[in-house]
């Protein structure tokens, strides 16, 4: 059993839990049921011991990478991932340790990094729109109806995304692609939760109009069922 070093929170030893999923680090306590160490605790530690910050990378790099890749493609994903964590490392002293989860903060930094590559962002969206739509047949089988419909509507959806302001697009994609909650998205973008709610309501209406106003999903599934 590892021993606790001076300066660590009582009862905690930083460790990876054997058998934990890749990238999932937890704290091995001195007894059963030891509490999981929060990002805020790691951030606080990293101010005294900079190498602790590596745990933040281990916890969240995969998620940030996936988002950066979805936004900019593989060429710039490494750059955004590295620059996001380098910036976070440099700014760790300013992290609000009242926020247990560092994801919204990291996404906020990642968005700023992505914003430095607007042309690549545009190219990536154009490429996404050009992907061939999947053919819908009468036998959808166990495939998700949502997925089939979305693939059919992809060019329209991407066009609708491109027609939004940058801040609106960031908000939508943080919710839809990064899977952040309204509160987390609000933290990442520096907005209030009520502002996020009202903006999302407006954006959903805007996208619905861009897709034709009615419910295009129903039309597509109906056509598939007739075949």
């Amino acid at each position: 059993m590892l021993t606790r070093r001076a300066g660590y929170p009582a009862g905690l030893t930083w460790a990876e839990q054997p058998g934990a999923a890749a990238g999932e680090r937890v704290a091995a306590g001195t007894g059963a049921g030891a509490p999981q160490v929060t990002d805020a605790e790691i951030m606080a530690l990293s101010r005294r011991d900079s190498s602790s910050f590596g745990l933040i990378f281990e916890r969240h790099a995969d998620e940030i990478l996936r988002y950066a890749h979805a936004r900019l493609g593989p060429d710039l994903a490494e750059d955004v991932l590295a620059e996001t964590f380098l910036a976070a490392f440099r700014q760790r002293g300013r992290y609000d340790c009242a926020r247990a989860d560092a994801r919204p903060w990291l996404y906020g930094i990642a968005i700023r990094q992505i914003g430095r590559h607007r042309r690549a962002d545009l190219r990536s969206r154009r490429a996404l729109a050009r992907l061939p739509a999947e053919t819908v047949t009468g036998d959808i089988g166990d495939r998700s109806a949502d997925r089939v419909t979305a693939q059919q509507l992809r060019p329209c959806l991407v066009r609708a995304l491109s027609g939004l302001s940058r801040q609106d697009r960031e908000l939508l994609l943080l919710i839809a692609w990064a899977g952040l909650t309204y509160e987390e998205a609000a933290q990442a973008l520096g907005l209030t939760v009520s502002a996020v709610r009202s903006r999302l309501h407006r954006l959903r209406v805007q996208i619905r109009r861009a897709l034709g106003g009615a419910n295009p999903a129903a039309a597509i599934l109906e056509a598939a069922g007739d075949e």
Partner: protein
Amino acid sequence: MNEITLLTEIQPPPPAQAAEIRQAARARLDAAMAGRRPPRRRAAARYRPGRPVLAAAAAVAAVCTALIVQIVLPAGQSATPFVTAAWAVQRNADGTVSIRIRGRAIAHPGRLEEALAADGIQAEVRYGVLCTPTGPVLPQQQAVVKGPFHVGPYYVTRLPLYDPFEWKIRPAAMPAGSRLVISELHPVRTATEAGAPLAIELVGDNQPVTCSAKLPDWARLRG
């Protein structure tokens, strides 16, 4: 179904080269955490397969690899070494396998595992952490691992900051179902020591290990 769900469904898939991208980004962060200047990012075209620049890079890498083999491996050893710029694995005539680490870091730990597996050594290689087995190491460790290690509950050393470090493994002495856990922590520099802590332990195949990004007491070298 709402508009958010539709957008979620068209999210591009995760990158195929995620592990490679992640490792490169981590290397830059590690440098910053160690107080060094982060290395420059790699060329953006790196992740686009089939480009002429990749073919040229591969050719250059092949030449460099050949040169490194000539430099780091003495004569009389087998002609099937596994070499990267960071480390080299070589089976010797006496059946031992030499591992030479250059540049303080076990870059590409997955590839090192593969290289060792090709020489009959089941290994788990971790970088950025030091691993402690649950329970004692297997008694055959002394016969399996030969090198300038500090022998305590586990074998530990410091990879020197500038010089290569080499040790040998005798695969024939490894019991069936055992594995070597090789782990390396980021370089440390204190008043009494400097270098990257590296530990090696021979454990049973199902024997769990706990890995920590902190330097455990058993890995501290004093005096």
